[in-house]
């Protein structure tokens, strides 16, 4: 039977992780269908139909789908699930919020946050903040799986032309009302997909000092990350948090500045290809995962870092 992918979008565009989830879905079965639920989401549905991995798009439209309320979405997918062996979404806040509601309704034991498809019923997933990897095999007839987007490459986004079918909307769940969303707008690369991430921790000492992180990120065309300690101290907003309960990032280069390296933080960044740590405490655990460690006062090292970068003829973008 085919795989049903739940597309994530903002009614106009697909969210980038839909491409990673498509790749994961295609590793389970070639016959991947995608459902897009929204309001006035034709453009996003069209973009979805252009992913070469998607064989069919199912579009479900209603005003009460505009804000992606899980209580409205879940019954639509539960109804469609009849024809599918697997339901797949990203393990970001969208999928985490939605998938268990579907799984419970289908009486399926969900498998969360997989990093590898071993077989259509067997998956690899990190547990204990990535300190152990579990191989798990689902015995349920229908499988609900969320995938860690950074563990799967994004698929091609053009060249396909899947048919778009419309399906009837479900009723509105009146007991939950969306009020507002405060999105943090930025011209920088997105934290989850950036090639370079520069992160600051408690060692930054103030929100104002985060300017140093910003300057370094500007120079390297990087996204800005932070440890939970820095977020909790109010130095920077929570959407920058990297770690077990924040975002998991796998950039080519991760630069940790003034971050000690608590287990929870390492869980979110230790799969990065190259890790740099700048910390004045030579014993800080961050050095145990760093490819290049610099034991130094960040308030001296970061300005020097900028100077050295200025001396380079070219910097990769």
């Amino acid at each position, binding site marked *: 039977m085919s795989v049903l992918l739940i597309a994530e979008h903002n009614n106009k565009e697909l969210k980038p992780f839909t491409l990673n989830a498509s790749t994961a879905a295609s590793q389970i079965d070639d016959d991947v269908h995608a459902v897009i639920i929204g309001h006035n989401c034709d453009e996003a549905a069209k973009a979805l139909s252009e992913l070469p991995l998607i064989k069919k798009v199912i579009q479900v439209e209603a005003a009460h789908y505009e804000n992606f309320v899980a209580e409205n979405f879940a019954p639509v997918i539960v109804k469609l699930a009849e024809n599918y062996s697997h339901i797949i979404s990203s393990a970001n806040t969208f999928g985490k919020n939605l998938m268990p509601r579907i799984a419970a309704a289908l009486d399926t034991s969900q498998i969360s946050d997989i990093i590898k498809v071993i077989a259509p019923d067997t998956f690899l997933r990190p547990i204990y903040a990535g300190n152990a990897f579990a191989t798990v095999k689902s015995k349920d007839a229908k499988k609900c799986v969320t995938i860690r987007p950074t563990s799967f490459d994004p698929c091609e986004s053009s060249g396909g032309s899947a048919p778009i079918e419309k399906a009837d909307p479900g009723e509105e769940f009146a007991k939950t009302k969306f009020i507002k969303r405060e*999105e943090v707008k930025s011209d920088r690369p997105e934290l989850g997909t950036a090639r370079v991430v520069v992160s600051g921790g408690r060692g930054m000492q103030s929100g104002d000092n985060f300017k140093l992180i910003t300057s370094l990120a500007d120079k390297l065309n990087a996204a800005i990350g932070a440890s939970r300690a820095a977020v909790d101290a109010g130095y920077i907003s929570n959407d920058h948090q990297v770690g077990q309960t924040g975002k998991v990032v796998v950039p080519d280069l991760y630069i940790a500045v003034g971050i000690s390296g608590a287990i929870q933080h390492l869980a979110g960044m230790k799969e990065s290809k190259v890790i740099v740590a700048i910390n004045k405490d030579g014993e800080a655990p961050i050095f145990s995962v760093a490819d290049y460690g610099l034991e130094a006062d960040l308030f001296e090292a970061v300005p020097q870092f900028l100077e050295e970068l200025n001396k380079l003829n070219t910097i*990769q973008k």
Partner: protein
Amino acid sequence: MKILVAVKRVIDYNVQIRVKEDNTGVVTDNVKMSTNPPDDNAIEEAVKIKEAGKATEVVAVSIGEEKAQETVRKALAVGADRGILVKTEGIIEPLAVSKLLQKIVEKEKPDLVFMGKQAIDDDCNQTGQMLSALLNWPQATFASKIEIKDGKLEVTREIDEGLETIEINVPAIVTCDLRLNEPRYASLPNIMKAKKKPIEQLNASDLGVDITPRIEQVKVEEPPKRKAGIKVSSVAELVQKLKNEAKVI
């Protein structure tokens, strides 16, 4: 208003996790156990709501082995009124936990159910949403702010893009983010008092729920180790290495 708070006993977040040599799981013998951190936020929030006069009773429930009683006792020490322990053995999946909680909810009839957004052992992030689906109640996941407004809750949720605010009718499920509040420590007199608070003990089998695992844990392994890195002596050396050796800038 009555608030039920679900708490889970997990390996303490500061413990370095070790995988068992036979790859059947992680070492839990002689390892420090604690309350799952965001469950502490859930208890704290419930107790604060009661202290503000907006709730009449806070009931803490845990599902797990006999020793999970300590986790319930800790919740009582920071202000929960009474506890329930549903005894189970072995791995119990979020789907089974949510079915057991559904039975407790039917019995206790709380107006709100709070719990942490995720347990730091299996990192599943499922139970609250599943319970909410089984009860057909509204769900507010990853809550970082809760305001009670006549029969409704206004909840600010942490989402990837920033923050989202929703309004949900009571009864409802809320899963708590670490940012929701600062959990208090139990004072010694309150720890003593908690010893006298009642904990009802039930067996999962008494609740008529099939909790047989649906997922076979084939093996548990150490994650691949990172190659040991080097310490550089200066920023100039660091930049040179990044440029010429790692070739990432």
